[in-house]
């Protein structure tokens, strides 16, 4: 215990020293407080009264989004707001009632305004309504005398002139939520908007710009008296997209109310001219703020308008996959273009029967006629000889079963099955019957419309690994001579050219030979002809009984049970330039529904082509009008 006694002595002695030190320091603090508040108090009171310079942030103008020709897709619009300054009226209720006689105000708004008035200082304005139309503004101005405390001010808000036609590309802006906060004070400005989806989100930081600062003189109560100094911020960068807005509008209108999507891209550069997904929605509504009912309507719509089907819709490719199977078979050497198989309308494998869509059979088929007429039995035969792993490998080279990095969030990968994949994912071995189904693009295989367009582009451009993109250029406001990003030379995917020519010939025949499944949707104008492939994807199982009594027609089925209609194509036939994919969910037949849409799109895109009539070489170069003469907003 002695030892502890000594230690305790030292401990307590030093504790007292330490405590003494703390007492001295705290006394210092009290002394300082006394000095600041009592001795110097008057001085600081005066300073506080004169404390009149308040720094405020100015929100920068958000950069515009333009299409490939500089047509505005997202702009800033004046936003007329009606405000109430409580101290300027004796009776808030009276002012609101008077205002209500002139423009409609909901009781919900009235309650919110009253709540805010209670919470804030009486000289601070409270927003009653935003985004008002000019007529309402005029009406308020005329009646201003009867409405004390009511004023109008003009701010800026995002506006999408044809937003509904390009919602899936543009995305939208909306208010900053708590989890978006990064410490940047700009985000805490009331009413500030940030990109929440689409290209608005992809380029959000560039579009935002830099905030400015204003020094305002305020009196001791914080009332703003005048502006002393203003340092303007920097508007956000202009973002040029590869989209052709007129074409985008055309395609969206053409798809109509169907749950459908279409992608149009340049087969050489990968520029996506159109990325449409319907039904669509109005991005302006998100900026304004959706009501509960509007949100519910969007979220519960069975045709899912909020889902960008062009990149996130995953579908079995059906017969549009047959080019892939044919190329894989040719490459392995199990068939030549001239090998023939006889189609009786069905193929037996073990206990199962695999049907051709043509129940009577196509007779003797070679590769050209099998693609032209989309004979299923022929593809069962060659798929069986090629094997699933080779088919999947070929599909991957053509851009399927992988993320293509089209900038937008939510892009899906699709699925290209292999033996190893099935063993791992389903814990059972691959069945040969499943290879047969894969031969006609059904079964496990899933692709997105974007992948289908890329696949078609890679076939049409002579086997180059073109990648799709949507941003042409981001032009910062303070850069005089922006650099146009170079489009890389795409590598070859190594397909034997004669094989590719064989496939292209067959795709040409699909829409230009009288036997072709899309002959009715051909383009007749010389030089504009298209090549393509139809696809019809069954989404339900057809029972044996139904086969015997006759398969039901699509129009007799529920919407959910109808076939998906697909078409992939390119044009012009010689020196191709554009690839398109169209998927209409539960639309019916590929040749009856999807092909006519694709034909109209390919006709329109060629008609609009500014380089029409020039040589094929020029068409391949990356120079487009306007790309070097970028205007400033």
């Amino acid at each position, binding site marked *: *215990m002695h*030892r*502890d006694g*000594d*230690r*305790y002595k*030292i*401990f*307590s002695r*030093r*504790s007292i020293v*330490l*405590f003494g030190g*703390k007492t001295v*320091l*705290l006394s*210092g*603090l*009290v002394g*300082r*407080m*006394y000095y*600041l*508040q*009592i001795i*110097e*108090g008057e*001085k*600081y*009171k005066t*300073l*506080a009264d004169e*404390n009149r*310079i*308040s*720094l405020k942030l100015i929100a920068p103008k958000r950069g515009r989004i333009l299409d490939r020709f500089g047509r505005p897709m997202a702009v800033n619009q004046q936003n007329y707001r009606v405000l109430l300054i409580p101290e300027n009226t004796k009776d808030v209720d009276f002012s609101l009632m008077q205002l209500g006689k002139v423009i409609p105000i909901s009781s919900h708004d009235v309650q919110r305004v009253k709540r805010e008035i209670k*919470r*804030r200082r009486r000289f601070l304005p409270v927003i009653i309504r935003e985004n008002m139309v000019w007529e309402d503004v005029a009406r308020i101005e005329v009646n201003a005398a009867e409405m004390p405390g009511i004023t109008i001010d003009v701010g800026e808000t995002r506006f999408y002139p044809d937003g509904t036609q390009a919602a899936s590309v543009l995305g939208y802006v909306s208010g900053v939520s708590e989890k978006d906060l990064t410490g940047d004070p700009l985000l805490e400005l009331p009413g500030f908007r940030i990109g929440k989806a689409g290209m608005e989100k992809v380029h959000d930081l560039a579009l935002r710009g830099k905030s400015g600062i204003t*020094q305002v003189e*305020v009196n*001791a*109560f*914080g009332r703003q008296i005048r502006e002393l100094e203003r340092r303007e911020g920097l508007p956000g960068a202009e973002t040029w997209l590869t989209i052709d807005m007129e074409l985008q509008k055309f395609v969206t209108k053409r798809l109509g109310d169907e749950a459908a999507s279409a992608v149009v891209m340049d087969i050489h550069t990968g520029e996506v001219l159109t990325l449409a997904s319907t039904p669509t929605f109005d991005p302006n509504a998100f900026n304004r703020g959706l009501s509960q009912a509007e949100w519910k309507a969007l979220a519960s719509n069975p045709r899912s308008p909020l889902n960008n089907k062009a990149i996130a819709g995953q579908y079995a490719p059906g017969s549009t996959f047959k080019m892939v199977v044919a190329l894989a078979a040719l490459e392995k050497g199990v068939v030549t273009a001239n090998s023939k198989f006889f189609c009786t309308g069905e193929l037996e494998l073990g206990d199962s029967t695999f049907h051709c869509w043509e129940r009577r059979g196509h007779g003797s088929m070679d590769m050209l006629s099998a693609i032209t007429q989309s004979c299923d039995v022929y593809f069962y035969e060659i798929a069986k000889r090629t094997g699933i792993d080779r088919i999947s490998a070929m599909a991957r080279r053509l851009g399927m079963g992988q993320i293509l990095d089209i900038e937008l969030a939510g892009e899906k990968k699709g699925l290209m099955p292999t033996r190893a994949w099935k063993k791992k994912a389903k814990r059972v071995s691959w069945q040969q019957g499943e290879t047969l189904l894969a031969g006609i693009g059904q079964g496990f295989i899933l692709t997105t419309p974007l992948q289908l367009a890329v696949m078609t582009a890679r076939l049409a451009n002579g086997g180059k690994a073109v990648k799709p993109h949507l941003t042409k250029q981001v032009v910062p406001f303070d850069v005089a001579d922006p650099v146009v990003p170079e489009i890389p030379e795409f590598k070859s995917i190594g397909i034997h050219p004669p094989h590719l020519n064989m496939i292209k010939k067959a795709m040409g025949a699909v829409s230009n030979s009288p036997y072709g499944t899309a002959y009715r949707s051909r383009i007749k104008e010389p030089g504009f002809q298209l090549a393509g492939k139809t696809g019809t994807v069954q989404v339900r199982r057809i029972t044996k009984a139904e086969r015997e009594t006759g398969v039901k027609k699509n129009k007799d089925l529920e919407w959910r049970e109808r076939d998906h209609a697909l078409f992939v194509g390119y044009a012009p036939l010689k020196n191709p330039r554009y690839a398109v994919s169209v998927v209409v969910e539960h639309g019916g037949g590929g040749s009856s529904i999807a092909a006519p849409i694709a034909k109209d799109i390919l006709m329109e895109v060629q008609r609009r082509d500014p380089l029409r009539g020039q040589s094929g070489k020029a068409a391949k170069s990356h120079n487009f009008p306007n790309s070097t003469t970028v205007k400033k907003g």
Partner: protein
Amino acid sequence: MALSPFRQSDMSLGQRLWQINWFFVLLVGITASIGFGMLYSAANGNFDPWASRQMIRFAAGLFLMLMVAVIDIHVWLRYAYAIYAVSLALLVVVEFSGSIGMGAQRWIDLGVFTIQPSEMMKISIILLLARYFYAARLEDVGRISHVIVPLILIAVPAFLIMRQPDLGTTILMVATGIAMLFLAGVRIWVFVIGALATIAAVIPLWNFVLLDYQKQRLLTFLDPEKDPLGAGYHILQSKIALGSGGMFGKGFLEGSQSHLSFLPEKQTDFIFTMMAEEFGLVGGLVLIGLYVMLLIYGFAISLRCRNQFGRLIGMGVTTSFFLNIFVNIAMVMGLLPVVGMPLPLISYGGTAMLTLMFSFGLLLCVYVHRDVQIGPGAADGN
């Protein structure tokens, strides 16, 4: 000490709860309530977004404090090193994950809640040093090796926390650690040499370790008037707000300087300024008075304790608490640079609240076990 060391303090849970110094708990509650009031004012007379959440956190903190208090003090003794090791490992994790491109990150996200290793380290270092010295004889403590080892154990986490970068926590932790070495009986001349060495070390520290914004804060502190609208703005505005409060202040919710956004971070670092603006010198003194009472309790509990482990913990917690108060208040009054340190029990912030309540829990634990004797070897179990 022929007797075998006590392994159990022979008290039931009820007895321990009864032994807790409830007047101390009451003081903590009163002080925290003043904090709720100030947060209510900071939000212009609203419980949202700060006051209501702070109340919930305080309730959680209270529960944590009582739990820590009734745990057998031998448990803290036995696991002191382990707790330090875990805290250090977490600091390394944060440092590592920060350096591979996740940006400056001071916390680890566990999904349900986040832990901030630097806050854990503040407590761990107290436990560590109390454990290290609890059985050391005075002759041992006099040896230089008994100074070097704890210094390294302080320096390693201090370096990691400084790099986060969190200067406030670093200073607090190092100062607490040095105070504990002093209390444990390390010779005075060691501190004299240490002070001289520190002065010699300042130059490389300034050149290589401190980041630009940290230097800026220190420079600004030395001459705030130089850049009244730039970096010196906060200190100047804080002095104006505080000074204009006068003797009795401008009244609750009426602090014009604080409410007109002249004052930055009024809910966290600068909350004392707002309080002094609204309640004047009198209000400030009441709060400081409450703090002094808590400090006296801490001091008394430490001196009354019959084991060295408890004494060291008690004074460690008290010193850390004091430094927290002092640095914050001196900072808002322009006596120290702005280093980013909240005012204990008053400022908004969940982690700081929980850390503080945990350390108060340890203090109460010392009080509950004040008559327990802990001999050498008690930490090794059995």
